Each structure stands twice: as C-alpha cells, then as structure tokens.
C-alpha cells in the first residue's frame, strides 16, 4: 500500500490528511506510478530502488525526503532533474514530463532545476565566482550578463568578499554557499538538495539551512531536500516524506509527523531528535526490580500543544504524590510541543499504578522504564 492510496481511502495509517495529493493542480513535482530498477550488471545483482511512488510536491514548498542510506532517496531526487530515468511511471516537473525528455530538450529543462551536493562538487580549477558562472556559460549567457548575475548571487549567499578565492581556500560552509549560488544561477524554480549539510558541523548546518529558508521565502523556489537527519527536516521542511526500502512509508506536514508518527521507521527518526535516550547517569542506575525506598521511573511522551508544561504540577496535585523530574526534553516543531519527560514516583506499587492510570486517562503515552534507588 502506498501513501496516495491510503489517502484516497481515508485510512489514517501512513497518510496525514490535507497534504498535496497526487492530482493537485499546483504541484511543482509529481511522481506518477514510479518504479526504478537497476538491472544486474556483472557480479552485482539487480536492485529494486523505488516502487509504487505516487505523490506530489507543492509549488513553493520545502519538502524533506528522509530515509536510511540505501532507502532510495538519492534515486528519487535524481528522477526530478532527469539524471535518472524511471523504469516505469513518469515524473512531471512544472507541468512537463521530464522522464520523457532526452538530449537537448532535457538539458534545457535541467536549467530550471538546480541541485546542491553533500561534497559541494565545485571545480577546483575555478574561483568561487567562476564556479557560479559555469552554468551560465553552459546556458550560453553573454559575458557581461554573467558577471552581473554572479555578483548578485555572491551577495545573495553572503560571500561577496570570496569571489576570487579557489575552493581549496574556502571553508565547508563557504563552499556550500558557492554551491547554492551556482545552483540558483539560471533562476531555477526547483532546488534539489542531496544531503547538502551532511558534511558540515552543526553550527554551519544551521546557517546553511537558514539561507535555504530565506531563498525559499524570497525567491519562491520549491526546495526538495533529501537527508538522513531528522534535525534537518525539523529545522527547514514544511512537509516530510519518509521512505524505506524503496517505498514511501509515511508523509505529511512536519508537525503531524512529529506529533503522531505512524511507521516504525518514522518513530525511530523522531526518537533521534527528540532525545528519548536517558542520561547515562540515570540509565546506568536503572534496575528492573523495585528498590525499597527508591523510585519507579516512568517516561511520558509529550506530543501536541502545551499540555506537557503543567504535567508535573497537575500530577502532583491531582494524584497527590511527590513527582521527581529526572530528565526532560521538549522541542517546538511546527508550533507543536514534541518531547518526553522522565519522572520518578515514590516506590510502592500503588503510587506508580495510580500515576500510569492518570496518564492514560489524560491521553499521555507513557511507559515504565524501571526503578532506581
């Protein structure tokens, strides 16, 4: 079953409502019945990289495609700019079936689709400015227009002072800025990002993601970013597509996906960013048997509006026990609170049972992790 079918029959699992259905008229990219098979070659067996892909990416949106390595996300994004051809189905970009184009027509269409890469892929023999000029030279722009456009782009990505530097003289973040400027040079309406921040440190990643958000806002460029990091999706994307083993397993608005993930793969991605792991000092003391005079440790999932804020106080007041806050992490994602609280309840079966019952009654997902002294 794929997400599109799930949406059509109104089944909740794997499809969150109200996101760009396959036949949306304002779709910038539309995958229609896509499968991609790499045939066996020499000693390598054939690989079915993608199957039953049917969804659309709305014009002007920022869509994150997330999956483990080998899930098929690289193949998926390369179908959009025609670097790969689907085995079946078609890919419609801005109203044009790009999978049917070849030769000169494909090359013309590719000029309206920019792409940035994990390892930047800058020419070492060209300065920053000349790297940005390359797609314009290829498109046959006159020299004077190229230099004006390059100056504009250097300013846009904030490296006007680095115009004459070679890539070997630039930092990773600066190289990616050159990559972004180059991708935008021919004024594309789609920007594809292939793990563009995976080789960067967290601070630089944040700066690059901010730049991409600005570009989306100011130029209206549709951005499709593939990543294996949920933190990237959380910061930048409005829509999420989760793929696993060549299938779209879940998709929807980022807030919905974070507050109510359905598929185990999605849940594991979310666990990575919302910090479900316990502090080491706590985890190492955890035992499965109750400890006399100790505490039962319970983890409460917080998903949704500000309900988690007053949880500890309400619990203490309404159940009438002392609640110790052992660990907590709550993030705001798309206006929703997402995270977990780990609380300690005084030993004795009664108290813990009461707390779990109260949590269930108020629709908090919770689990008992064990006991500590």
């Amino acid at each position, binding site marked *: 079953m794929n997400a599109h079918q799930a949406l059509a029959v109104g089944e909740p699992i794997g499809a969150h409502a109200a996101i760009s259905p396959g036949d949306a008229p304002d779709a910038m990219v539309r995958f229609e019945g896509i499968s991609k098979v790499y045939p066996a070659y020499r000693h390598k067996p054939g690989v079915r990289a993608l199957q039953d892909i049917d969804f659309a990416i709305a014009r002007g949106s920022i869509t994150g495609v997330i999956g483990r390595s080998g899930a098929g996300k690289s193949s998926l994004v390369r179908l959009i700019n025609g670097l790969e051809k689907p085995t079946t189905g078609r890919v419609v970009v801005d109203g044009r079936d790009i999978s049917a184009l070849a030769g000169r027509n494909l090359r*013309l269409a590719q000029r309206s689709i920019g792409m940035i890469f994990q390892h930047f892929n800058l020419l070492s023999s060209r300065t920053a400015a000349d790297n940005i000029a390359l797609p314009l030279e290829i498109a046959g722009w006159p020299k004077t227009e190229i230099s004006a456009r390059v100056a504009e782009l250097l300013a846009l990505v904030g490296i006007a002072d680095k115009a004459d530097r070679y890539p070997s003289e630039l930092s990773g973040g600066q190289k990616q800025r050159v990559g972004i400027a180059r991708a935008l040079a021919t004024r594309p309406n789609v920007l594809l990002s292939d793990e563009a921040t995976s080789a960067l440190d967290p601070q630089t990643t944040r700066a690059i993601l901010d730049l991409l958000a600005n570009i989306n806002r100011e130029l209206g460029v549709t951005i499709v970013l593939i990543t294996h990091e949920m933190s990237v999706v959380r910061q930048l994307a409005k829509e999420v597509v989760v793929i696993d083993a060549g299938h779209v397993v879940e998709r929807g608005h980022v807030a919905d996906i974070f507050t109510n993930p359905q598929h185990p793969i999605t849940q594991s991605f979310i666990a990575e960013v919302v910090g479900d792991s316990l502090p080491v000092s706590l985890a190492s003391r955890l035992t499965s048997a109750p400890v006399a005079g100790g505490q039962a440790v319970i983890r409460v999932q917080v998903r949704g509006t500000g309900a988690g804020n007053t949880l500890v106080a309400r619990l203490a007041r309404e159940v009438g026990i002392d609640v110790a806050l052992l660990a907590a992490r709550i993030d705001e994602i798309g206006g929703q609170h997402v995270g977990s609280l780990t609380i300690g309840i005084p030993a004795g079966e009664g108290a813990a049972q009461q707390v779990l019952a109260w949590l269930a009654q108020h629709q908090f997902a919770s689990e008992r992790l064990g006991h500590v002294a």
Partner: protein
Amino acid sequence: MSPEMINLIVQATGESLFMVSIAALLGTVFGLPIGVFLATSRKGELFAAPAVNAVLGMVVNATRSTPFIILVVAIIPFTRLVAGTSIGSTAAIVPLTIASTPFIARLVEAAIREVDAGLIETASSFGASPLQIVFKVLIPEALPGLVLALTLAIVSLLGYSAMVGAVGGGGLGDLGIRYGYQRFMPEMMLAVVVVLIALVQAVQSAGDYLARRVNRRLRHR
C-alpha cells in the same frame, strides 16, 4: 674538445629538439582526444561506446607493446608515404609520433579518470552537453595531471629519438653511437650523455613548475 665536435653536438641537439618537439605536438594532437575518449566511453559513461572503447584499447596496447626500433623499421613504407622519404630527422618524426600517440592517450586517460565523477554529475545536472563537460570540466580539472603526462611523454620521446639513428634520423643518440661508440671517442659519448641529462632535467623541471602553477587544489597564499 675541438670546435668541429662542438658544432656536431649543437647540430645534433637541434635535430633532437626538432624531432621530439614536433612528435610531442603531433602525439598530443592525436593522443589527447583518444585519451579523453578512452576515459569516457565505457558502459554508462559520457560517450558510452564499450565496443569501440575495447577495440581502441587493443590497438593502443598493440602499438605500445611493439618495440620502438621494430616499429621504426616496420613502418618505413608508411613513413615514405607521409614524409616523402624514410631517411632523416623529418622522416623520424613519423615513427616517433606513432609511438607517442598511444602512450600519451593512456596518460591522458589516467589523468581524466582522476577527475571526481561527482563533477560530471554536477555539470549534467545543470544541463551541460557531453562536449561542454569535456572542455569546461574534465580537461580544466585534469590540467595538472595532463601537464605532467606531457612532460613524461617528452622525456620518453628523448629516449626514443636516440634510436632513430638506425634509419638516419640524426640527433644526439645517433651522434653518440657513431662517434662515441663506433669511432671510439669516449669524450663525445660523455658529451652526448651530459647534454641529454641536461635536457631531461630542464623538461622535467619546467613540467613540474607548470603543473604546480595550474594546480588549484593546493593552497597558494
């Protein structure tokens, strides 16, 4: 050393430089496109033509495995057809070119294959044609390697040029054999070897310098 001997050495050096430079030039003219094609024509590559690639590869290997002195003699009729004569420095350029072309082609192929495949994908992603990729990406990015390849080819050609004396090609090698060995003039042999060493050093130093100049992968400032 007599003025006559010095004259002979100067003249032979001129002949060697003439043969080697023209052969290197022609070898590059023919070898560069062949090398680029060999590097880009396997299955799934830019100019994918696996069958042509395989045949061309075999021809290149066959030419390279023929000992140079045998090649010189074997192609005398062809040399006569092209140069009008089979004797002299001009005629010697023909076998030198034929020997250096496949050598340069293989060196070019290796240098081009060193270019990151990601750059080809990148250029394709913004709609570059295969020829634009060759001229705007592959050759500029491989330039340091290509300069070193040409340097190596010129040094090898200096060695080959010593053998064309067998067909009256002249040059330093010929001088060394005829005067130094056959007339037993060890000082002439020594002079020839010294000039050859100096030439090889000069070519290699110039090549290294140029390769460094065009290499932007290293920090300069």
